[in-house]
């Protein structure tokens, strides 16, 4: 108990820091989420309530308090055991952030007993994170240990009534998703019918998806009938694992004893499994030729010859009718490398989906939610074939599917389409455009006169930050570090110089030479994992490491929608391999031609990694749209805000 209590104390400031740092943020998390700027929490809170039919769910908070007697005890242990792989006991013992959050959850149930549970869950969070929690902690804490001992019993007991209640409402399935704050736990409950359907489809999916999903290549086609399965299969395939979404579902339908087993996030496809690869290949639209000189260490990742698909694809252009032209276009752009960068790719994809949704017409005798989800899934798998998804794309797909799933059944098709259309708009605006603006504001406060800033590659947010600080009249110098083979930094350099910033340019090998004069390192990121690992363009880790060695603070600018609850320790297990050919040639250096016919040499492999993972201890600060947080606070943001804002 003591350990846990002490563990809470350091958390609070971090959580609060989020709000505290945000300029103009009123710390009104209890009403609208953490930031004044991100207005999605109220919207997402309200819209489900507004759309919903079931009287049970009209005021979500109300519902929460009503059902909490039932749902809470059910939800807490389940969520704890299903959603986060580490066992509950471990976390209790360790007293990490998770433990404390779990504690929050469990103590909620104890509070309910006292009848003092607040209506708004977020209020509860807030209150508990300020002093009040401490007073209720003893009882809550003990409850939680008791809970831990017999979760199955509690769950079972609670489940029955919950199921009964849910049967009554037709839209109950949606309802669970819509509970704004505690949605994750609540989602676990589904109607029995739904559960059974899902279970069956999952079984089918497992049989089939274990095979086909290995490719990132058209798993969706495997599933003709059951849409949830499709969704799941494709999710499993996504590099960007929607492990929460998937495990949510999984966890929901299974009885808790099985949960632990099911906990394991959906396996990413491993390309060294021949069976699966074969199956996946048969389904693929894009049929890439396999690279001949594959790197042994990366057999688990797709290694294809690049530049060969496009002609083939174009020849198939008209056979691709299931794929919407807008999506197709984006896919080809990915393939060609015309759209790069996490944000750009994500926005392009969402815009394409918007188009697709606009043109979508629901076939008769099908429900919109399922059919559209299936459609989207097939688009997504097409995009995966073109290029593996980035984390940000995975997250936004998750968002979209969530929105679709939550569409009330009664809404007419056009209304639903409009709603989705505006949802996507809102997502792009809030999560990407506005978030960037907030980040830029925050980051600019860290730039002082006389600073020498170092950046690596080309991150849009970092560029915007520097330009903004320049506009503010700060006097600073920029060091642009670049690396092969993309030389993204040259584009950044050009843009900064054009704006009149004083720049130095160098390559990554010289980073330790230049680091002496640098006072701040600003880096972008493709994703941040919940163990604080920063997943970004390859070389970021090197730069951060050298900066760390020279005691230069490293600031990572990353929008919160790119955060992911996955954990990763190295850059090998999951990564993306680029075209090896670009390594053998050096642009503008015709004299470097030693490896012109490298493919003929059996012993030679060329490895073009796209990403690497920066350990969290190299990172001094992460600047997100929720403020500036240390890397240890990433799981907090992933858990709390994600759930608040999206679902």
């Amino acid at each position, binding site marked *: 108990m003591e350990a846990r209590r002490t563990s809470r104390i350091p958390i609070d400031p971090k959580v609060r820091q989020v709000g505290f740092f945000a300029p103009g943020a009123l710390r009104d998390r209890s009403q609208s989420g953490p930031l004044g700027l991100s207005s999605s929490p109220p919207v997402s809170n309200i819209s489900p309530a507004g759309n919903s039919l079931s009287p049970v769910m009209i005021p979500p908070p109300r519902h929460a308090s009503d059902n909490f007697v039932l749902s809470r005890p059910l939800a807490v242990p389940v969520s704890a055991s299903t959603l986060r792989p580490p066992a509950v006991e471990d976390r209790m013992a360790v007293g990490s952030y998770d433990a404390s959050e779990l504690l929050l959850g469990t103590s909620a149930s104890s509070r309910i007993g006292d009848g003092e549970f607040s209506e708004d869950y977020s209020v509860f969070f807030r209150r508990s994170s300020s002093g009040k929690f401490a007073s209720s902690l003893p009882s809550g804490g003990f409850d939680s240990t008791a809970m831990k001992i017999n979760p199955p019993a509690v769950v079972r007991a609670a489940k029955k009534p919950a199921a009964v209640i849910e049967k009554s409402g037709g839209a109950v399935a949606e309802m669970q998703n819509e509970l704004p704050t505690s949605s994750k736990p609540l989602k676990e409950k589904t109607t029995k019918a739904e559960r059974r359907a899902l279970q069956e489809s999952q079984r089918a999916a497992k049989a089939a998806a274990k095979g086909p999903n290995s490719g990132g290549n058209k798993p969706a086609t495997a599933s003709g009938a059951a849409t949830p399965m499709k969704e799941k299969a494709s999710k499993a395939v996504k590099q960007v694992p929607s492990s929460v979404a998937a495990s949510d579902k999984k966890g929901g339908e299974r009885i808790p004893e099985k949960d632990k087993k099911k906990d394991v996030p959906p396996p990413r496809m491993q390309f060294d499994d021949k069976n699966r690869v074969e199956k996946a290949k048969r389904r693929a639209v894009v049929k890439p030729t396999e690279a001949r000189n594959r790197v042994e260490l990366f057999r688990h990742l797709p290694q294809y010859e690049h530049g060969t698909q496009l002609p083939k694809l174009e020849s198939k252009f008209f056979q691709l009718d299931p794929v919407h032209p807008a999506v197709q276009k984006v896919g080809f752009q990915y393939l060609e490398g015309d759209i790069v960068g996490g944000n750009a790719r994500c926005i392009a994809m969402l815009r394409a989906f918007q188009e697709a949704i606009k043109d979508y017409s629901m076939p008769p005798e099908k429900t919109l939610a399922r059919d559209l989800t299936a459609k989207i899934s097939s688009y997504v798998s097409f995009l995966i074939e073109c290029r593996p998804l980035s984390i940000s794309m995975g997250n936004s797909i998750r968002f979209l599917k969530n929105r679709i799933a939550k569409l009330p059944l009664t809404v007419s098709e056009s209304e639903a389409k409009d709603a989705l259309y505006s949802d996507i708009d809102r997502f792009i605006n809030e999560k990407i455009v506005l978030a960037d603006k907030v980040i830029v504001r925050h980051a600019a406060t860290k730039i002082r006169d006389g600073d020498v800033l170092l950046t690596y590659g080309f991150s849009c947010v970092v560029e915007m930050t520097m330009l903004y600080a320049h506009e503010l009249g700060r006097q600073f110098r920029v060091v642009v570090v670049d690396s092969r083979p993309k030389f993204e930094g040259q584009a950044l350099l050009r843009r900064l110089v054009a704006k009149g910033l004083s720049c130095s*340019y160098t390559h*990554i090998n010289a980073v330790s030479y230049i680091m002496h004069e640098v006072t701040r390192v600003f880096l972008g990121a493709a994703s941040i994992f919940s163990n604080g690992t920063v997943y970004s363009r390859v070389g970021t880790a090197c730069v951060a490491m050298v900066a760390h060695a020279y005691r230069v603070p490293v600031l990572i600018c990353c929008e919160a929608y790119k955060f992911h609850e996955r954990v990763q320790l190295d850059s090998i297990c999951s990564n993306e391999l680029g075209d090896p050919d670009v390594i053998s040639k050096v642009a503008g250096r015709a004299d470097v031609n030693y490896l012109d016919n490298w493919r003929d040499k059996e012993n030679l492999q060329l490895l073009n990694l796209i990403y690497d993972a920066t350990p969290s201890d190299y990172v001094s600060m992460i600047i997100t749209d929720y403020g500036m947080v240390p890397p240890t606070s990433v799981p907090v943001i992933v858990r709390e805000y994600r759930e608040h804002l999206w679902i």
Partner: protein
Amino acid sequence: MTAELLRSVISQQRVPYNNQAGALIDAIKAVGEQLIAANPVELAVGNIVRRVLHIIREEDLSLATAAVAGLNLSAVSDDEDDGEREDHPVLSAAAVAAAARSTLRPPSLQTLLEDMPDSAAVPQSSSSGGDSEGKSKSADKSSRSRKLKHDIIEAVNELIQDIATCHEQISEQAVEHIHQNEVILTLGRSRTVMEFLCAAKEKKRSFRVFVAEGAPRYQGHVLAKELVARGLQTTLITDSAVFAMISRVNMVIVGAHAVMANGGVIAPVGLNMVALAAQRHAVPFVVLAGTHKLCPLYPHNPEVLLNELKSPSELLDFGEFSDCMDFGSGNGSPLLHVVNPAFDYVPPKLVSLFITDTGGHNPSYMYRLIADYYSADDLVVQRRPASGN
């Protein structure tokens, strides 16, 4: 590296001209200064000059000790001898042994003496002053100086040979350090590393090599090609992927530009990053270096003082960026700087092991090795040109 060798050879070949030890030393110093000033970053040149000076002193000393009767000890050499004797009694013994060895092979003397003038005609004029001086002095003490000259030539010859064969001697140790299925990472290209790896391969070890390409010179491409030609499993990676890959690497083996007295390494650019990554993952960082790369200087701010900035054109295409380059013309100072250093300094704490032609050594042992190869007097002299930078 071959350039260094060539230059060092030239500097050595001039030696036989000078007969009298003191004059010889002066002459070599003069030449050495010039050579060093010509390119202060090429530390190996200075090292070789010092080595030669040291050899002269040693030989002179050994002669003097041999002729204990002390018939004709010149004042100059006498003083030096005293200093030397106090400093390195052990060394002088070794030098005597070396001299004894060299006398076992008399035939080479004649050919060397005849060869030298031709090849030495090329280098700088500064040696000529020393020559005449030395020759005039040598007239009166012909018997002794002839012996001295002979010994010195022998010893320098040996030095040349040592340097020429240091690759082989280093690569002989390869099997002791590389085990089956090892994964080795290297950056850029170094002949020593190449031969080291190939030697292990010839001994039927099978292992894999990751080669970081070493931008902007991309020597890694050459190395990869050479290794593949020898049948080694080679994977070429970008420099930026070093951190990602190092966790799967068992050993980092790199060449060096120079090894400093404190055990630090001046190495091709990018190696500091590699060394840091290796330290992070507890991967041994092994530096291969011939003893001629051992430099008796203690580095001060070596990243700046002992570095060389190369042309920006290696990084940026001038044509492409000419518009950016112009931006600065308005307000005097250019907005765009391009930094392209040639070398990195790897501090001794990041180096796990040095493998030299005399065996493996810790970074902390380097200062002692230096005492073996150089005489303390020369360090001071050489610092003059070095401080000029």
